[in-house]
């Protein structure tokens, strides 16, 4: 795995997309390093699918710019060959057999690693002669993933791939995905409205709500910068200037705050505790703007 990350595999600058008068995504600025695994989290309709569609070139950008694998997203074969995409609900041609789908992948992609795809499907125990319409949800996800991985993309984008999978299928999918990421150094961007698996799976996090990015960065840094602070109200009122308060709860004799602070809080009169990732994400999703 490369640790010397110098280039961003996914870069956006003020990107957005508008449907008529409605901005599904606005002023989105991100820089995701090569080899990272990023989770894009947010409620349904937040703009996650819009972001992914912009990155893969299925949607044109109404403002700002995007760069994926060093190129602006387009429908040109050169770009398409570098980016893999697994759309929501893992669409497949239902009347094709799994073997047909592999043949489809080979026919449609010049850099096609058929052996990789077959190995993946063998490991996932997906029968090659079964029609795609008769596969279970977990098997369909594995097939869709295999098709995307066999392209050997530099960047792999996935739109809520885990949404309709049972826990076992989810775990299998993630094993395949991360194993491939480890082996190839490919960059992964995955959207989800579930937060549970994120900490183990991702090293970067993007939180989107109402079409805007509320939080973005390296997961380790995010976790270390957010703390739950409690203390007497007069103490909690006097926090350093660079501390951002996300939520406040006032009790009779003390106040609890969820804050983001770049430096550790050393005031001994304050009790600090780390924040659960799920709680942290919820705080950004609930915070009214």
């Amino acid at each position, binding site marked *: 795995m490369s*640790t010397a990350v110098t280039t961003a595999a996914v870069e956006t600058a003020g990107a957005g997309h508008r449907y008529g008068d409605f901005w599904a995504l606005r002023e989105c600025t991100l820089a995701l390093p090569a080899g990272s695994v990023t989770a894009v989290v947010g409620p349904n309709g937040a703009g996650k699918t819009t972001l992914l569609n912009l990155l893969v070139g299925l949607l044109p950008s109404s403002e700002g710019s995007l760069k994926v694998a060093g190129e602006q997203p387009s429908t040109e074969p050169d770009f398409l060959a570098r980016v893999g995409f697994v759309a929501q609900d893992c669409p497949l041609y239902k009347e094709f057999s799994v073997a047909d789908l592999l043949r489809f992948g080979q026919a449609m992609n010049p850099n096609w690693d058929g052996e990789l795809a077959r190995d993946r499907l063998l490991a996932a125990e997906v029968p090659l002669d079964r029609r795609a319409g008769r596969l279970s949800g977990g098997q369909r996800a594995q097939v869709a993933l295999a098709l995307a991985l066999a392209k050997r993309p530099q960047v792999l984008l996935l739109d809520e791939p885990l949404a309709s999978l049972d826990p076992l299928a989810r775990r299998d999918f993630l094993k395949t995905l991360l*194993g491939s990421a480890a082996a190839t150094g490919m960059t992964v961007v995955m959207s989800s409205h579930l937060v*549970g698996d*994120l900490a*183990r799976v991702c090293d970067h996090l993007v939180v989107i709500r109402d079409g805007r990015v509320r939080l973005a960065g390296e997961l380790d840094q995010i976790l270390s910068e957010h703390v739950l602070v409690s203390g007497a109200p007069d103490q909690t009122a006097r926090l350093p200037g660079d501390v951002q308060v996300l939520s406040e709860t006032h009790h009779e004799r003390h106040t609890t705050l969820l804050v983001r602070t770049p430096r550790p809080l050393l005031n001994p009169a304050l009790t600090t505790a780390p924040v659960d*990732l799920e709680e942290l994400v919820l705080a950004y999703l609930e915070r009214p703007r």
Partner: protein
Amino acid sequence: MLDFRVDTSSGLAPYAQVVQQVKQALRLGWLQPGDKLPTVHEVAASVAINPNTVQKAYKELELAGLVVGRPGAGTFVARSLSQSTPASLALLSRRLERWIAAARAAGLDDDGIMDVVQATMRRAQAQDIA
């Protein structure tokens, strides 16, 4: 081999948890000097943990001198965790007894003492990492 776990509510960054788990294995003797740690790819593919997390953890362990990475071969345990000498342990125990007495005098009960210890350790860890 090793079974890494990442607990989302532990408050420790994921890579720090992996570091902790390796150190625990060293302490308990499950890992001996010369043993090969699972590769980043193996961990990713077997327990679905982010390969960058594992990589970062191994790097940290390497900086602490506990493991050594050999290009092309893998990451190997370099030494076991230093056992403190009996003398230094005795000294630490006496200092701790005095502190506990002071804490009890200040009105802290056992739970209160544990709270203070844990909070202080966490702060110290955060300072180490930051």
